[in-house]
């Protein structure tokens, strides 16, 4: 049977990154994130987080995604875009572009929830690669600078948030600890690097326990702050002298908090297939802790390629394909939503 390949253009503009991707029958052909090359090609300094920057970047980024995939725009089957959650100004750029482009090509439009797409990043594979995906049902721990969620995933289209942060995100906790230690922002990777050389049990910080499967990192942040203030009164260079141990202990606490609720979720749902998503999934301490659970608790842990963990359009183009298969299209009256639940 000679089936026509289904090419989907995915567009992501929910926050800082402008990104476009082409998927073909559920495989990623290109995944372009506006970066230095785009800035250089079009000159000038483009602010990092900006709807105006999205406006300047969206056409070159879509152009690059099409040409890298060697796909002509006339061959696209549909256009998928991030409808929310995110910054409304940024979302508007991607949404408006997607609508106009779909109308001009006379092809269907597919709306995608950014947080669900993060989960779908676990199914990402390039053309010719095997899809190493977690089996349904699975639990996805989505951890980034802006989000911390446990998502129960029954199928591509059926997902439920069973736990989330009530204040700060886990990635923010990393960044703020880094800030208190005068490490550069975003400080997550810096803390991770220092932590590898320190003793995770050198200092003890409180592990929050919220009702149900919800997270809280605000109290942890404050306890690190007070701890450092107190120690610095006695020894001005306390942080500098104990950098690795402080980072290791703080990271250990954040991961303990993350794992505690995830373990509880496994017990409550009986689901042992675990996936992760979001920028914090790059954290080595978190990866090691999950792999340890695989050994000790019989979890099956899936860690996607980092390219599909941070904000990217690949996950949008991919989710677009699954929604295309289900015939889930939207009309041109669709509007972006800053807050957008499942």
């Amino acid at each position, binding site marked *: 049977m000679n089936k026509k390949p289904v090419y989907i253009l995915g567009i992501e503009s929910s*926050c800082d990154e402008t990104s476009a991707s082409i998927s073909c029958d559920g495989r990623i052909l290109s995944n372009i994130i506006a970066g230095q090359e785009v800035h250089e090609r079009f000159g000038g300094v483009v*602010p*990092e*987080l*900006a*709807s*105006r*920057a999205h406006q300047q970047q969206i056409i070159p980024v879509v152009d690059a995604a099409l040409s890298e995939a060697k796909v002509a725009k006339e061959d696209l089957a549909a256009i998928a875009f991030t409808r929310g*959650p*995110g*910054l*409304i*100004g*940024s979302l508007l750029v991607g949404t408006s572009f997607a609508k106009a482009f779909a109308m001009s090509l006379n092809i269907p439009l597919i709306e995608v929830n950014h947080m669900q797409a993060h989960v779908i990043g676990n199914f990402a594979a390039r053309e010719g690669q095997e899809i190493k995906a977690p089996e349904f049902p699975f639990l996805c721990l989505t951890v*980034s*600078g*802006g*989000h911390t969620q446990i998502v129960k995933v029954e199928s591509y289209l059926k997902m439920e948030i069973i736990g*989330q*942060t*009530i*204040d*700060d*995100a886990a*990635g*923010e906790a990393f*960044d*703020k600890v880094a*800030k*208190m230690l005068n490490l550069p*922002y975003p400080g997550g990777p810096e803390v991770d690097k220092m932590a590898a050389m320190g003793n995770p049990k050198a200092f003890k910080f409180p592990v929050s326990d919220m009702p149900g499967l919800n997270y809280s990192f*605000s109290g942890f*942040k*404050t306890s690190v*702050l*007070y701890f450092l203030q107190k120690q610095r009164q006695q020894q001005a260079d306390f942080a500098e002298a104990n950098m690795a141990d402080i980072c290791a202990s703080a990271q250990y606490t954040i991961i303990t908090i993350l794992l505690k609720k995830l373990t509880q979720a496994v017990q409550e749902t009986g689901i042992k297939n675990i996936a992760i998503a979001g920028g914090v999934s790059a954290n080595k301490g978190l990866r090691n802790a999950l792999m340890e659970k695989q050994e000790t608790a019989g979890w099956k842990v899936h860690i996607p390629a980092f390219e599909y963990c941070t904000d990217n359009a690949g996950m949008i183009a991919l989710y677009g394909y699954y929604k295309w298969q289900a015939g889930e299209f939207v009309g041109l009256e669709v509007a972006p939503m*800053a*807050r957008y639940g499942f």
Partner: protein
Amino acid sequence: MTRTWTTVTLEQLPEVAAELLQFASSQKIFCLHGEMGAGKTTFVKELSKTLGVSDEVQSPTFSIVNEYTAASGDPVFHFDFYRLKSLEEAYDIGYEDYVFSGHYCFIEWPEKVESLLNFAKADIFITSDNNTRTITCRYE
């Protein structure tokens, strides 16, 4: 007009939030000042609850602005300019559309965009000391 609440405990925050919004009932834009960990986001949670926001108020440090819905149906905007590097970036997210919307705006780290916030607004200062806080609200 200035009013100060001293030795405020966590349990008293809802009461202080209600009193503060009453005290500054003519105001819609509130800038929150205080060091990291002073409890700015926690206080915005209480202010929002007072307005009847039922959504979970989460930190907007990453998202820059979170939008909630008050009991009245009106939006409530919660900003955090902590990670902005230039005034340009505040223009780029369209801050004018939010702050001149006539809806409630709670702004953390306003120091980052001080020169843009040169209009009538209320300031809330939070300092914390041994589990209690001192909260001051001031407006013209």
